[in-house]
């Protein structure tokens, strides 16, 4: 077998290991789905009646209109949430003795990380499907064509891959499992300071500038455009650029961190 076949085979083996972990202990997945669902219900039913008027590109007013506006942002929050879970998951896994065993075996080393990343992306897609169903239940009415749906799935997958690599890096540099759960917190807050919950032109000056220039706003606007038909403009290209940048940073950082913390003492 060639090097590439070995690399693929080892990565598939590691992926199976991670999927088995998730299946056996689904509580983390449920927790990761729970948070965006709570946000969705809270915002639609508590704030929706007030905020729901005069939203750009959304028909009608009130709760149903706000559900439309909110859903794309909540889907992105879902992806960020599962990425956070990945940081915790990988930090926990690194304390397992079996990782030291993997390091003494002639395997394709990055497969350990690939297994985590692919597993986490699958997990986040499952979570996104679940949250989408709940959003439909509270009034979300997307008007996307099949091609737009496909593109939307592509955007979510792209965001998920990028954030997961970053989360893996954060999980690897974290000294403890606890700090691994704290490090990605800023990521979780970013969508709130973007266009997830309200249009950015309702925000005060400096905050608006920040909202317009951070990665989550173009990503959410792209998704909103695909699902609801609002204008996408340059947001699509900017989103892809952000995701490529974040993915590359996360990938390089994660690989370096994984090679650096050799033989983390399992005491």
């Amino acid at each position: 077998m060639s090097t590439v076949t070995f690399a693929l085979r080892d990565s598939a083996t590691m992926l199976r290991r991670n999927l088995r972990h998730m299946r056996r202990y689904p509580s983390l997945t449920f927790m990761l789905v729970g948070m965006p669902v709570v946000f969705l219900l809270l915002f639609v039913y508590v704030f929706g009646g007030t905020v729901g008027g005069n939203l750009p590109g959304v028909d009608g007013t009130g709760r149903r209109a706000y559900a439309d506006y909110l859903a794309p942002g909540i889907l992105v929050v879902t992806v960020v949430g599962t990425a956070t879970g990945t940081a915790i998951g990988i930090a926990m896994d690194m304390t397992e003795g079996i990782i030291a065993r993997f390091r003494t075996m002639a395997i394709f080393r990055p497969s350990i990380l690939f297994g985590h990343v692919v597993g986490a992306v699958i997990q986040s897609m499952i979570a996104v499907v679940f949250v989408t169903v709940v959003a439909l239940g509270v009034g979300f009415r997307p008007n996307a064509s099949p091609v737009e749906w496909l593109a939307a799935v592509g955007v979510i997958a792209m965001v998920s891959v990028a954030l997961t690599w970053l989360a893996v890096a954060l999980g690897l540099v974290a000294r403890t499992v606890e700090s691994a759960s704290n490090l990605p917190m800023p990521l979780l807050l970013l969508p709130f300071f973007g266009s997830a919950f309200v249009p950015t032109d309702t925000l005060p000056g400096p905050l608006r500038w920040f909202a317009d220039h951070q990665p989550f706003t173009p990503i959410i606007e792209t998704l909103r455009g695909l699902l609801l038909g609002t204008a996408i403009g340059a947001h699509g290209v900017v989103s892809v650029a952000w995701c490529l940048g974040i993915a590359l940073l996360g990938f390089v950082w994660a690989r370096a961190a994984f090679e650096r913390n050799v033989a983390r003492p399992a005491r």
Partner: protein
Amino acid sequence: MTGSTVARAIAARDLRKAYGDTVVLDGIDIDVPAGSVFALLGPNGAGKTTAVHVLSTLIPADGGTAAVAGHDVAIEPDAVRAAIGVTGQFSAVDGLLTGAENLRLMADLHHLDRAVVDGRVADLLERFDLVDAATQTTATYSGGMRRRLDLAMTLVGDPRVIFLDEPTTGLDPRSRRALWQQVRDLVATGVTIFLTTQYLEEADQLADRIALLDGGRIVAEGTPAELKRLVPGGHIRLTFDDPAQLDAAALALAGSERDDDALALDVPGGSDIARLRAVLERLDRDGIAVEGLGIHSPDLDDVFLAMTGGHR
């Protein structure tokens, strides 16, 4: 392999490793002929695990060279990894998977043919007495079961050189003996074993050669018999109720050492049964009343005291 006449499975020269100011390995040489069992003996913190980590490519040495299975650990780590199996001091099983799944994971990572995987897994489960527990997650395993699975996982890839870092620490005596037997069975298949331990008895039971690690250096090396010759033998300690009895016993058993404060007498001989019988018969014949008797066998402390001039 190297240029010597005997093929060496492990050859290390002047290995050095420090963590900050703590010098852990201060230039050690190790030679292990292929097919033999080598024991690195030392107390907690001596640097045994560090030596295993360097030789098994987990961490780089600061200085010196090491070749395992004919490959330099620094230059061709993957060739070394392909030849070795490591059972570390700390459990290296996946706690969320079952015993069988753990073995299967190893088989997949060794790229074993799907056709042989089932047979290999079943074999190892049988051999390590894990058939009943095969479908339970290892989180439910006892310490002894975990150790056995750990060793079984190490064997999945048919390694030629096996590292066992304190394989029986924390095991009850029965599990310890069972594991010793597993190691002997392995040796019979011709593999090379590098073992670390804190117990002289374990090294004595299993190893062809023993090296004593202390203060980052190898302070003594040889066969078990050679090392034991360096150590003062054990003794039988007799205690008495009354000084007169102690006097009488000291007179009867020449060459023994008295401890007047404890009203005790140390008779050379340790756990030698014939010697013990002779001592008891002599005491009986002279009508000496002994209050208590204890047997002291030579242990690691004695070896170290002898080797290091008692600086520990």
